[in-house]
Every structure is written in C-alpha cells, then in structure tokens.
C-alpha cells in the first residue's frame, strides 16, 4: 500500500481549496489548546522534521530557540518562493491554504506567537485571493482559536525570500539580507521570530494529526517523511510531485514521462548543482543520499535538460539573472556575478578572450563566504557545476561561437525584472 499522497491528498479534481474540502481530506485540526508548547515541540523533534525552504534546518531546534526568548513572538510562513524553477509553495497556497494555515497555527502555538504572518510574492494575485478567502472562512468557523493572521505581499525576488531579507522586508525595510542576523532573537518588529517555509507548516499540520511515528513511516531513517519536488524540462508532466525522501530520481522521471534523451539534470534549482545524465540511475532524492554525490535537494526544484537544448545559452541566461538579482550590498557578489555574466555572454557569442575559462573558474571559486548571505555561494556553485558538466559545450562555443540550438526556446525559467 502506498504511503502517498500525504500533503497532496487534498488536491484532486473536485477540491477547490475551501475549508469543507480541507476537512474532508485532512479531518479536523486537533484542539491546540490541549497541547502544551513543550509537548508539541517534543513531538515535532521526534518526527525529525526539517525545514523545506532549502536549508533543511531541524524545525524543533529552531522552535526551541524562539520559544526560549522572553516577550511576544512572531511566526512567519515563508511562501515567497523566489526560486524560479520551484512551484510547490504556490501549489500549497493556492490549492491547500488551510493545510498551511493549520500548520501556522501549530507553529504559533509551539513558540507562543499570537501573530502568524504569511508572506507571498506581491505579484501573485491568485495566492492573495486564496489566502484571503481561507482566513475569512476560518475566522467565521473557528473564532478565537487561531493566531491573528497577517497576509503580507512582499518583493518576490530571488534573494528577498532569504530569512533575514524577509524579516527586514516585513519590518518595513529593504528586502535585503542582513549580516549576522539572528531572527530568533530579534526579527519582525524586533520580536523573536520563527520563520518556516509554507511546506514545512503543511507537514506540521499533518504531524499534529497523525503523530511523529506516522511521519517517520515514510522516507528513510536519516531523512524521514515525504517532500514536494518541482520537476520541469524534458518531461511530459511538468509540475509538483510528492515523493518519499529517498525515492529514485529515475522513477520520478519515468512517471513524469521523459520526452527526450537527457544531457544533464539540475538538482536543487538555481541554488543547486548540475549532474550529468549518466549519474541519474544512482540518484535517490534525500538530502543525505544526494550529499554522497556532492549535491543538495534544496527546495526540491529539479530540471531535466534534454540533449536538444544548448546548455551554454541556458546557463548564460541564468548567469545574467543572478547578476541582476544581487542585493547589491557586497562588493564580491555585485562585481563577481556581473563579471561571470559578461564572460558567459562572450562565450555564448564566440567573442570570449582566451582568459575567459580560467577567469570563470577563478571567480566561481572566490566569491563564496564573502557576502552577507549565501547568494554568491549558490550562484557560483551553480556556475561551477555547469562548467564541469558542460565543459565540452563551453569549449565548443568558445572556439566556434553560437550553435544551432542557441536560439531555441528557453528551458530554464528566468523571470523578467520589474523596471
């Protein structure tokens, strides 16, 4: 018998995200007033739940850090999903908003927060409407049992969803990461703040219903539970899938229907790394197992790159995106990413100087750890892995210029910057 779907059990043709459909699929949320916050955190600790925003930080540990502080605390559900290749948070907020809000209520109870802020990208009216309706429904049918929900539409850039950038933004400041930030001590409006990805909240909603042991029945011992991944590229069924941690990537690709032979696969989205297609049979989708191959699951964005695509054109486009998304606070990031983008452009057009490849190698290895956040670390990891996996294609373009596939439609999504 399959252990899945879990989170996505409430999503089908007839569900419309309303409270009634949610209660039919998930059953009622237990009365949280009966759970002492400590007891709640213990159960979450037993489950082994880790965050789903990309850092995979143990949730119970984060909760304890916030709960230990004095004074009123704040819960923030991060649904900004700045990673262009990821769509799981959007799916949750538009189709399963009550699952997320249940989880927000659980997390708020655990840390003693009276306010639960749900943050989402300001350009997304569908998410806004879905959340507004869900909050109204809950206010009518569960008065007095919930935290005060604040729905906040914020900047949806790549870096804006980073924990300290989001906290800054919610506090009325710029959506830029802070150096040495400690949101669990001083976060939104200077209060101790727990920030959790909305998928993490959704898992909490089910753990409190079914228990830690139930959560651990799926997945592996090192990485229990199920998780959402977003699959795109050379597959027939693009979109969000729920898998058990440890599921073979080959199985996922088979069920999504590969449309052509693959050249490579991107694991972990733009904050992740490339692996050649020949590695696919060995890949199992859990943080621990992927670490053996030197890659991370991140927020679960996976792109299958077909052989008909020009990797140089694709990587070059993403490098430009990275340069544009720098918060602009740190010299190495601003300058380094601009230099990488410019050099990639030169290689793609066949106008690169001989020093182009050595320069790219050097920059890719010298930006990490030198910014206020890990954006330059992630961007250079992406670029360095691309230079390794697509070495022949880069050499080819350096010598001979654009190839026949350079002007094919883009595969890797690159949102246009708002002027």
């Amino acid at each position, binding site marked *: 018998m399959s252990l899945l779907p879990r989170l996505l059990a409430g999503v089908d043709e007839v569900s419309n995200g309303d409270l009634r459909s949610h209660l039919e699929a998930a059953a009622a949320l237990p009365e949280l007033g009966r759970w002492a916050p400590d007891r709640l955190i213990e159960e979450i600790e037993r489950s082994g739940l880790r965050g789903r925003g990309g850092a995979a930080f143990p949730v119970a540990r984060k909760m304890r850090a916030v709960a230990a502080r004095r004074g009123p605390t704040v819960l923030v559900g991060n649904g900004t999903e700045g990673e262009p290749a990821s769509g799981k948070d959007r799916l949750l907020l538009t189709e399963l908003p009550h699952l997320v809000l249940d989880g927000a209520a659980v997390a708020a109870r655990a840390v003693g927060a009276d306010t639960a802020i749900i943050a989402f990208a300001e350009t997304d009216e569908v998410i806004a409407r879905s959340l507004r309706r869900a909050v109204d429904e809950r206010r009518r049918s569960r008065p007095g049992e919930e935290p005060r929900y604040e729905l906040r539409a914020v900047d949806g850039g790549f870096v804006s969803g980073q924990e300290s950038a989001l906290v800054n933004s919610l506090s009325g400041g710029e959506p830029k990461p802070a*150096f*040495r930030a400690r949101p669990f001590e001083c976060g939104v409006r200077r209060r101790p703040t727990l920030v959790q990805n909305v998928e993490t909240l959704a898992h909490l909603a089910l753990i409190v219903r079914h228990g830690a042991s139930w959560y651990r029945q799926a997945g592996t011992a090192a990485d229990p539970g199920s998780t959402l991944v977003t699959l795109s590229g050379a597959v027939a069924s693009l979109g969000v899938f729920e898998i058990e941690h440890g599921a073979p990537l080959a199985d996922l690709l088979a069920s999504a229907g590969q449309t052509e032979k693959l050249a490579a696969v991107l694991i972990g989205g733009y904050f992740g790394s490339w692996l050649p297609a020949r590695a696919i049979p060995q890949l199992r989708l859990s943080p621990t197992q992927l670490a053996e191959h030197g890659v991370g699951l991140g927020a679960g964005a996976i792109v299958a790159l077909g052989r008909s695509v020009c990797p140089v054109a694709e990587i070059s486009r993403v490098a430009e995106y990275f340069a544009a998304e720098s918060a602009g606070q*740190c*010299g*190495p990031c601003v*300058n*380094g990413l601009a230099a990488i983008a410019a050099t990639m452009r030169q290689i793609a057009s066949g106008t690169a100087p001989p020093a182009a490849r050595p320069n790219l190698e050097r920059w890719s290895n*010298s930006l990490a750890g*030198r910014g206020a956040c890990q954006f330059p670390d992630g961007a250079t990891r992406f670029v360095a892995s691309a230079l390794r996996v697509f070495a022949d294609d880069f050499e080819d373009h350096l010598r001979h210029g654009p190839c026949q596939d350079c002007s094919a439609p883009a595969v890797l999504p690159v949102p246009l910057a708002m002027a």
Partner: protein
Amino acid sequence: MCAELLPERVTLDEWGYPILDGSPLPPELVAHARHAADACPTLALLLEREDR
C-alpha cells in the same frame, strides 16, 4: 585599508575587496587584526576568539 593594515592575512581581489585568510592568528598579529577590523568603514570584518 585592511590589506594595508594586515597584509599577512588580507589580499585584495581585482575589485579592491578583501580576500581573507581565515587561519588562526599568531599572538603578534592580533593587535594588528583588531586595528584592521576597527578601521573597516562598513564593519565587514570580524575578529573571532577560538576556544581551545
């Protein structure tokens, strides 16, 4: 500025930003390192005590 104050541990990249050698400081360099960290106009440098 920091590269001038602590050339033993700080070199500059092509844009003039510091690349730090993070290895532990011998006692004779600690005062210089503190001076360099204090002099940084953006408070970007951090001197950390390493517990034995």
